[in-house]
């Protein structure tokens, strides 16, 4: 893994590897971004919920610190985008308000369902029976318990639904489903509740009126959702914090979508970027390399002779290589991309046949004998096959600069740095 801006991370290192961040001072503010902030707890959550959460724990300390630093920069970028989304009024858009409303309903519904489930208890005698039957088999026991509760839960849910339908005087008007149905046709009505055809089938989602049976099923499901959610809200269940957290995730994403449309209005913009950056299309040659490296020319020459007499470069590398990693991997250096290795060696790799052992190559690290185990030739991709990559390249390029301008508007202060500087421009990359 590579990280740019290495010195910045070294500055962060001391703070970012301290377990104190994970343990004690969760509320400690690491960065302020205008009126917003990132706390140690926010960063920790980001690490723990990232796709590499498991891998993170296996890394060396500097690598962990670099990754934390990278994530912190991302969090700062997200805060900047969130603030600007607010300034642009994206949070006033009807589709955003609708999305949040739907999210609120689904969270409330979940709370209610959870409450119903918690009301169910396996009777003590049945529980003992199950424990005896599945002694020593915890997974089977859990499955048996779930099976016992499933039917009870189904009944409890139906009972609650019927009760709430009566309580709210819910009436269905499914006879109104026909080919000339309008978006404002009311399909369900109750006290403070209402579902129209437009709520069920969003305009433009379907080329023609969907099947009546499907619409009915949707109406029943949405009604259940609304009834349970309303009941939870009336009981005082508060999901404001969850909804706010969702808005904080959604707004930066909406902001990015808006920016992408600005930066890449059409296919022509993509093609122009592709043409201006030919290196994007270049897929470098790659080699799976075997290597033996020793400290003197004489020893290298001796090794070369032994290989010519039939000994294996890999066996010798495992025994004599002065590169500890290479030695512990018996000279199997893994895959290299053109441009990643030492130029002198790369030049040789390019011209060698697979399986051939090179002559002695001298570098700052010693005297090398290399061989290509397997190779993937380089190539140039065409525009049609790499539009996503071109799009990403434009976004990356523009975003870094754009975040800089946002920092003028919302000053970023890195509390995490002892000397207080080094933060400027850091939310780029």
């Amino acid at each position, binding site marked *: 893994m590579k990280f740019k801006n290495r010195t910045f991370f070294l500055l962060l290192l001391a703070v970012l590897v301290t*377990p104190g961040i994970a343990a004690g001072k969760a509320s400690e503010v690491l960065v302020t971004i205008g009126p917003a902030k990132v706390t140690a707890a926010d960063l920790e959550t980001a690490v723990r919920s990232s796709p590499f*959460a*498991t*891998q*993170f*724990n*296996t*890394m*060396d*300390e500097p690598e*962990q610190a670099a990754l934390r630093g990278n994530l912190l920069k991302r969090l700062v970028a997200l805060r900047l985008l969130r603030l600007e989304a607010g300034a642009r009024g994206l949070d006033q858009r009807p589709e955003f308000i609708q999305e949040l409303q*739907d*999210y609120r*309903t*689904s969270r409330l*519904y*979940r709370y209610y*369902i959870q409450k119903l*489930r918690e009301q169910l208890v396996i009777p003590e005698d049945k529980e003992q029976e199950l424990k005896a039957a599945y002694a*020593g*088999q*915890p*997974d*089977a026991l859990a*499955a*048996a318990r*779930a*099976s016992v*509760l*499933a039917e009870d*839960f*189904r009944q409890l*849910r139906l009972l609650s639904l019927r009760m709430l339908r009566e309580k709210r005087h819910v009436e269905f008007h499914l006879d109104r489903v026909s080919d000339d149905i309008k978006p404002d046709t009311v399909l369900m009505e109750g006290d403070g509740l209402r579902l129209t055809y437009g709520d069920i089938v969003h305009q433009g989602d379907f080329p023609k009126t969907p099947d009546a049976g499907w619409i009915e*099923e*949707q109406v*029943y*499901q*949405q009604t*259940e*959702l609304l009834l349970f959610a309303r009941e939870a809200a009336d009981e005082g269940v508060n999901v404001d914090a969850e909804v706010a957290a969702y808005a904080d995730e959604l707004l930066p994403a909406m902001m990015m979508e808006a920016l992408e449309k600005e930066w890449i209005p059409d296919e022509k913009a993509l093609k122009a970027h592709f043409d201006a950056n030919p290196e994007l299309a270049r897929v470098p040659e790659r080699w799976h390399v075997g290597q033996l490296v020793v400290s003197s020319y004489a020893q290298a020459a001796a090794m070369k002779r032994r290989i010519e007499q039939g000994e294996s470069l890999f066996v010798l590398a495992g025994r004599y290589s002065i590169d500890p990693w290479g030695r512990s991997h018996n000279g199997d250096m893994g895959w290299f991309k053109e441009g990643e290795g030492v130029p002198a060696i790369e030049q040789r790799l390019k011209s060698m046949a697979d399986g051939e052992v090179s002559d002695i190559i001298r570098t700052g690290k010693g005297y090398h004998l290399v061989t290509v185990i397997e190779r993937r030739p380089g190539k140039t991709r065409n525009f049609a096959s790499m539009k996503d990559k071109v799009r990403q390249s434009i976004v990356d390029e523009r975003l870094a600069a754009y975040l800089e301008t946002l920092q003028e508007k919302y000053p970023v202060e890195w509390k995490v740095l002892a000397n207080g500087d080094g933060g400027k421009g850091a939310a780029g990359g």
Partner: protein
Amino acid sequence: MVTAERARLVVKGRVSWLGLVLTLMLTGCDAGVEASGKKSRVQEPAPAKTATTALPERTNNAWEMAPFHLEDLNGVKHSLEDWRGKVIMMNFWASWCSPCQYEIPEFVHYQKTYADRNLQLVGIGVDEKRKLANVARSLGINYPVLVLNPMDSRQLMRKWGNETGIIPYTVVIARDGRIKYIHRGQMDQEAFDTYVLPLLD
């Protein structure tokens, strides 16, 4: 919009053996895949039981089995005998295995809470030492972790009843050496309370 249909799918609780096998696959990882880079043999079907105390050595006493010797993260050699007389939870794990990482903080908590009641966690890390040491540091592991080379792991794991090489895999050994319980996959609080707690002082 989250539909009631989706919520309903979640509560559907019909139990089947297939479901059980799936659970096993989800809660555990297969050490054979990672260790050798590719699957070396056709996977035997997962056994229906999650736990057993029957070991291939025809004894269910740890002290009657041939001892093994492994180095810990500091390079000190140990055998299980080092902790003879304690209630031993021997946990096979690896750094790439997420369920292992989920249960390790629980084990750290058990070790801290029940050390004075003679509980001894022993981790057997089936992985590179460097990665094991990093996980031990990151998760604050407070019990010994012995390093088991993945290439040699099959044999030892089989000896302890782990035919399929599932990870995590935890063997509970009573103070007299009897193997009281084996847990395949991530161990939960209930399993600990049921099978380990009664053995402690």
